[in-house]
């Protein structure tokens, strides 16, 4: 019974998916209800199995030391599975609203719940073999979600996604092979299983093993130069993109890296192998490149995708620092980035859902139509930049401390530089939506009202400049004077009296707030973002367990 209780989170979504896929059992009308029930039950099961179940390890099938399907619960499992299952609930509700206008619901929800099962599997895996198995399954389960639109472009992206993923998985296998040849064991243990005494004579093998596995898992974690599947995977429906970026795919890559570094090799061994110096350049390039290229993107989701690449670089950096503070920062950022990025994607999805806009230059003044949504976006953006008192700052703080603990100032500079770029690519979105008036483009307004997406070519150079270029100071005093003059003259011409105040000059804009199913998750997540920023201590204490296991 305890055994069942423990692996329940792995089974519930599968059972749910079996129901969902069955047309005769579940009618189209009840589809979403079943999905909701499944994810909620799953969440409850997760909580039960993590905190109210004494059993923490179970072998499902043990053929030999290698072929051993083994599940285990430790603090890291708790962190990841709680994160995933809770975000899944929110995403589910968001998806119910979002998927209204999409086709093939049944397929979508089937794989949606199946992916949850796989993610739970990743979290609960007790050894590298199980983890790897779930890792491969993850690719297969998310693929249908990525290519859900079914267009040629989507299929192309899907192919790219799967080839990259399998390339990565192949590298992982390579690493596992070499590891297993040395250790003959692949289960996760606190402080690692690769004993320092094993290094003698196997140094090269272990080194290559670590590198191969890091790069292999790095593919899912969008490590440059294996990142380009991620921006391409943007063709997926937004809830999927959000999940891909927040927990499902990239975070499982990161999670696997933490498992591999701290629970297989162990800090001491990795230090003794001295491999991080080969990997750090990749990570640094990832951070800077992601954020720099994000500046170039006009497509909202692509911009967020490049942002994810950069942010994942932070986490990898934290992992590779091999200090408690660094790991803490990485873990915090794993959680925080998940929350932040899912919010950002939800907002972008809401914009697209309501207006069919996909590009930054189209969303001028949209903040007035969907204020709550865009405020949430702004808060999340600020958090991602790392400005207190939001949770993004907390993780950045610990990452910075971790870098200082190993005495490397370059990393801090990289972190801060990237944060600056982050501001450069996220804040203009908020600014464009709130502070750039949309009045100059009347036809754009018509467009979203008629819900036609014909406006790709509509672009105003001035706003593009603002969002794209860094500053180019072409406007001098005189220019300002002349420009303002016309505006002010109008004002002077208008009657200047006390009564003018009562007149409402803010024409009430058309409200385009998304439906509640989408809005509530966004707001809730925003509250979490700020909440975690103001009261980070509980979560830091919770992560303390992981740090203890690792060091």
């Amino acid at each position, binding site marked *: 019974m305890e055994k069942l209780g423990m692996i329940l989170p792995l089974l519930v979504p599968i059972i749910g998916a079996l129901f969902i896929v069955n047309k005769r059992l579940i009618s189209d009308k009840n589809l979403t209800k079943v999905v909701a029930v499944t994810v909620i039950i799953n969440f409850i099961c997760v909580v039960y199995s993590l905190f109210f179940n004494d059993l923490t390890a179970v072998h499902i099938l043990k053929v030999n030391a290698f072929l051993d399907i083994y599940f285990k619960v430790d603090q890291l499992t708790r962190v990841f599975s709680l994160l995933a299952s809770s975000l899944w609930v929110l995403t589910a509700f968001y998806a119910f609203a979002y998927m209204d206008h999409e086709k093939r619901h049944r397929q979508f929800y089937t794989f949606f719940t199946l992916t949850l099962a796989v993610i739970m599997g990743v979290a609960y895996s007790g050894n590298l073999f199980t983890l790897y198995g779930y890792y491969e399954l993850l690719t297969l389960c998310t693929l249908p979600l990525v290519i859900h639109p079914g267009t040629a472009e989507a299929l192309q992206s899907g192919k790219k996604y799967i080839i990259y993923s*399998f390339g990565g998985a192949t590298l992982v*296998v390579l690493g596992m092979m070499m590891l297993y040849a040395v250790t003959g064991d692949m289960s996760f243990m606190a402080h690692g299983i690769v004993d320092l005494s094993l290094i003698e004579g196997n140094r090269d093998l272990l080194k290559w093993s670590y590198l191969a596995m890091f790069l292999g898992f790095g593919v899912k974690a969008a490590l440059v130069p294996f990142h380009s599947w991620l921006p391409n995977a943007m063709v997926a429906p937004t809830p999927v993109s959000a999940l891909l970026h927040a927990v499902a795919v990239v975070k499982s890559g990161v999670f696997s890296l933490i498992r591999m570094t701290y629970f297989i090799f162990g800090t001491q061994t990795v230090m003794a192998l001295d491999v991080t110096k080969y990997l750090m350049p990749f990570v640094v390039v990832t951070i800077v490149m992601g954020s720099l290229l994000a500046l170039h993107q006009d497509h909202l989701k692509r911009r967020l995708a490049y942002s994810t690449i950069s942010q994942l670089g932070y986490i990898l950096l934290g992992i590779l620092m091999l200090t408690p503070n660094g790991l803490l920062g990485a873990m915090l950022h794993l959680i925080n980035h998940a929350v932040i990025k899912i919010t950002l994607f939800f907002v972008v999805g809401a914009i697209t859902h309501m207006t069919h806009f996909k590009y930054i230059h189209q969303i001028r003044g949209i903040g007035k139509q969907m204020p709550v949504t865009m405020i949430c976006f702004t808060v999340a953006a600020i958090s991602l930049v790392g400005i207190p008192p939001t949770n993004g700052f907390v993780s950045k703080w610990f990452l910075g401390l971790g870098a200082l603990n190993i005495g490397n100032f370059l990393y801090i500079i990289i972190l801060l530089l990237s944060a600056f770029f982050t501001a450069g690519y996220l804040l203009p979105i908020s600014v464009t939506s709130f502070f750039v008036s949309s009045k100059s483009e009347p036809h754009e307004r018509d467009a979203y009202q008629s819900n036609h997406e014909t406006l790709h070519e509509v672009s105003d150079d001035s706003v593009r400049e603002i969002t794209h270029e860094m500053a180019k100071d072409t406007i001098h005093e005189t220019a300002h004077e002349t420009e303002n003059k016309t505006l002010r003259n109008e004002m002077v011409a208008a009657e200047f009296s006390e009564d003018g105040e009562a007149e409402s000059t803010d024409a009430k804009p058309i409200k385009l707030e998304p439906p509640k199913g989408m809005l509530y998750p966004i707001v809730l997540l925003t509250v979490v973002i700020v909440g975690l920023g103001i009261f980070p201590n509980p979560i830091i204490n919770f992560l303390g367990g992981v740090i203890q296991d690792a060091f």
Partner: protein
Amino acid sequence: MLQCLTLVTHNTASPNLVKLIPLVSIMLLMLSAFIMPLLKKKRHLFGLTGGALAILMVLSFVNVAYIYQNGGYYFDIGHFPAPFGISLRIGEIESLIALLFAIVDLMVTWYAYYSLEKEIKESRIAFFHTMNLLLLASLLGIVFTNDVFNGFVFLEVSTLAACGIIVVKDKKTNIKAGLKYLILSSLGSGLVLMGIAFIYSLSGHLSMDYIHEAMIANLDGKQNTILISVILFTVGLGIKGAMFPLHIWLPDAHASAPSPSSAILSALVIKAPVIFLIKVFYKVYGTQIIHETVILDLVLLFGVMGMIFGSLFARSQKELKRMIAYSSVAQMGYIFFAIGIGNTLGVVMAIYHIVAHALTKSSLFLAAGSFIEQTGFKHIEDFRGIGKEMPVTLGIFTVSGLSMIGIPVLPGFISKWNLAMASIQSDKLYLLIFLLISSLLNASYYFPIIINGYFGEENLDGKVFLSKSKPIKQLLPLIILTVLMVLVGFFSGSLIEFIERGVYTV
């Protein structure tokens, strides 16, 4: 379960009777084969074949169970002891392969019951079955025999029979492919025969154990002759086993033959010569001599080339069956690779991969055959959206494809994993790279079919759900094969242990 059955066999069948099984199997098949032309009705034909194969399967299973309990044994045909008479040696590997052959052939025959007459003329069905059973008999002979010349004869028989099941479909391409296969095979057999001549001149024996003893005894000064003979064997058997540059007959033959024939060819026909080659290497020459020569490196080289180029060629194919045929070339590359590594684990994995690949490839060919049969198309492009029309069949195709690609727990992954372990054990780390590249290449041609088959709005446009799917009873053989394949992956640990017990190397 195996143990349970062993107990049963132990109690019911006397050991001596069990030892008759190999001979009985061959005889049974041959007899049935020759009765076949006498029968007219399709039901009777299939009844006889199916019955024979079912009996064979049960016998093989009993045999495996017996060997699991008691180990391998020799069986002298006609009770002439070894140096003079022909003897059969049945160990763990042989019994396992026999069981595998029986199961696969039974499943293919089952499948053929529903589909064969759509591909070949009705009058040819009897011929097909004759050849099929004859082929199986000869293949079992190759596997069981402990006598090199006997092996040669069986090889020739198998060549003829295999050619028979290729040309059973009266098309131009089939005749051409059959002729090509026949000529190349004859060349190969010529080499094998020459090799036999050489080792006979060296040792004066034809029974494997005795040749081995004799060769160990007077090794000096004969290295060159040994080398030449070993090359003759390798190349000769390499042709039949589709070793990479000699694979040229394979795609034509496999692609043009009727699907059941393709499945048999891919799953069985190219496997038996490899078993024979392993036997020649390790039973005739022995580990010591083989390791002194560089022949294993040559095999390794051909194996690696096969893995890479087979996949590359497969990638650029437009016909589905040709693609799967080239994939067979690549998979045979794995097997030669495994042999070429040269340590025990390598040989074990070669055998394991033979088992795994036989199950996987037969189900792949049968699935592809179903597509072609139901839609009438041959080209990969035409199978877009097939997943909507035939979801179960494509599902089977997918699982088999995933095994080829190397998804954990499926047998493809297990072989790759252990091959890597074997490479590491023999200090050839660079081989891992080839393994991985090849598995990536595998992914690159299986995935597009699966993805295009299941997903993509444009692809699925105009397709009707389940419109072309076969009834479940017709799909059952495929499903059984797939399930068996998954089980082979799941219980790879015990299977490998079992093979390891019977492996010839030291």
